[in-house]
């Protein structure tokens, strides 16, 4: 592939938009959480100020090389998903670097960030980090099972592993979305989305009041700033993944913003209603209903 400066420029601009939209969306969701608790909540610009504050901390301590690399791996996981994810399907400006088979790479990048973070946080040496990592990895392994089954079902249905092709196949109206043509895969995928977006029933990895605060316990200042930036990007691209797979993708930025917001809100809504699961509960939960739905989705299209 030859070097295309215009494409690179659009991709970087897209990353900037996604980062800022992710920060704004996080603020909205925290405000929604606050309103549910009858508080007013943070101002909408608080995530940016927190980010500036964290980057402006003067002193840093390190526990070794992997401690440095942990947040970088995590960030490259989030940015990696972004790079291979088509954002806006019309035209070819916002397709980023999606290609035939990008879905496999996106699945890989989802785990890549977590593994890098596990190594980095492990070197931090804090016992809560180790607990958070073991919980996070075991939970994510079970999340991947229904998610992968849903994706396999879609791949058989549309006969492709290219995300852009899956989105193009869903164009032409509301009833063409995979949500209607493949409801079982959508159900399995959206239940897995609750886990990947990390809100309440499945937030025992961070578990703010129990193991403060899981893997990033030792991370501070710039390290934490990198992790926060990645969190903002990751929330948007995860929502964009589900949007592309099940809800017909986006044809412009307004549609993108509305759909990603609603998909993220789905996990926040569930999180507001249901309390946190323990690790064995959440692991077995993913291996029950979502797994059965995923198997049905695959069998239907075999």
């Amino acid at each position, binding site marked *: 592939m030859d070097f295309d400066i215009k494409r690179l420029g659009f991709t970087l601009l897209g990353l900037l938009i996604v980062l800022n939209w992710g920060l704004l969306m996080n603020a909205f969701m925290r405000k929604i959480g*606050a309103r549910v*608790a*009858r*508080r*007013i*909540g*943070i*101002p909408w610009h*608080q995530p940016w*100020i*927190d980010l*500036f*504050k964290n980057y*402006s*901390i*003067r*002193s*840093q*301590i390190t526990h070794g090389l992997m401690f440095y690399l942990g947040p970088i791996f995590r960030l490259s996981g989030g940015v990696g998903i972004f790079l291979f994810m088509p954002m806006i399907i019309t035209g070819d400006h916002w397709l980023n670097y999606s290609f035939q088979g990008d879905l496999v790479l996106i699945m890989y990048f989802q785990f890549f960030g977590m593994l890098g973070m596990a190594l980095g946080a492990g070197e931090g040496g804090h016992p809560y980090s180790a607990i958070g990592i073991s919980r996070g990895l075991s939970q994510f392994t079970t999340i991947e099972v229904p998610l992968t089954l849903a994706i396999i079902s879609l791949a058989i249905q549309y006969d492709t592993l290219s995300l852009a092709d899956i989105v193009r196949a869903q164009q032409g109206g509301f009833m063409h979305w995979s949500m209607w043509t493949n409801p079982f895969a959508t159900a399995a995928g959206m239940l897995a989305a609750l886990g990947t977006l990390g809100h309440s029933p499945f937030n025992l990895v961070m578990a*703010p*009041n129990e193991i*403060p*605060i899981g893997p*990033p*316990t*030792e*991370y*501070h*200042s710039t390290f*934490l700033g990198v992790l926060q930036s990645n969190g903002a990007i990751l929330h948007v691209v995860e929502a964009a993944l589900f949007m592309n797979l099940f809800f017909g993708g986006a044809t412009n930025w307004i549609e993108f913003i509305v759909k990603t917001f609603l998909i993220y809100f789905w996990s926040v809504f569930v999180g507001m209603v249901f309390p946190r699961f323990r690790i064995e509960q959440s692991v077995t939960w993913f291996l029950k209903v979502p797994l059965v739905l995923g198997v049905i989705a695959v069998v239907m299209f075999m």
Partner: protein
Amino acid sequence: MMVDDKNKKKFDNPHYAKREVIGPDGKSFIVDPMNDYFCDARPKVHEPNIIPAVEKFLNWARSKSLWVLGFGTGCGSIEIPPLITPRFDVFRFGIQMRPTPRQSNVFIISGYLSVKTLKRVIRSYEQMQNPKYVLALGSCTVNGGMYYDSYNTINRLDYYLPVDVYIAGCMPRPEAIIAGFNKLKELIREGKGEGANLYAKNFDWYKANQKKIIKDWNMPDYNW
């Protein structure tokens, strides 16, 4: 172990003793927890940014994003839950609770400090990163308050930690704590919230005061 006073109790927890251990591969190696687990390098003075406009902007961001360490000492910690719940809701003002000292900027000393707690407070304070601020609640931290003649509480907090803002009262109500936070924000925006650098500059004086009070000093002089 900088215990020079003969009267002080020598700490001899077997878990912290230097010892030889045989590993799973049959080779023996030395474990010295006091050196392996802690870093005892002295704190450094971190000068503010040399460009005044940049420092002013960063100070504005710091004042708008105060992360409070969830560490309650004494009776004043009961005044913190009303702050973060609907009645007073300090999230509106950019004040958030953080469970780990690494990520916190503000340490609220919420009331009397027993000597046992002071030790934990010092460890937690030293683990916080450089721009860090101490908010002292109640008359106990000013002059001992109703515990002024107690055998195991300290009377004046700023002998041991650099305090940015005192909030008088017994106990100060949440409104008073919010007023204290506003004062702290003013100080930070004026560039006067340099408690961490003050601590680093007068490190020997603070350490001497701390060691005068804490009898079983079983930690390095400075643990980050």
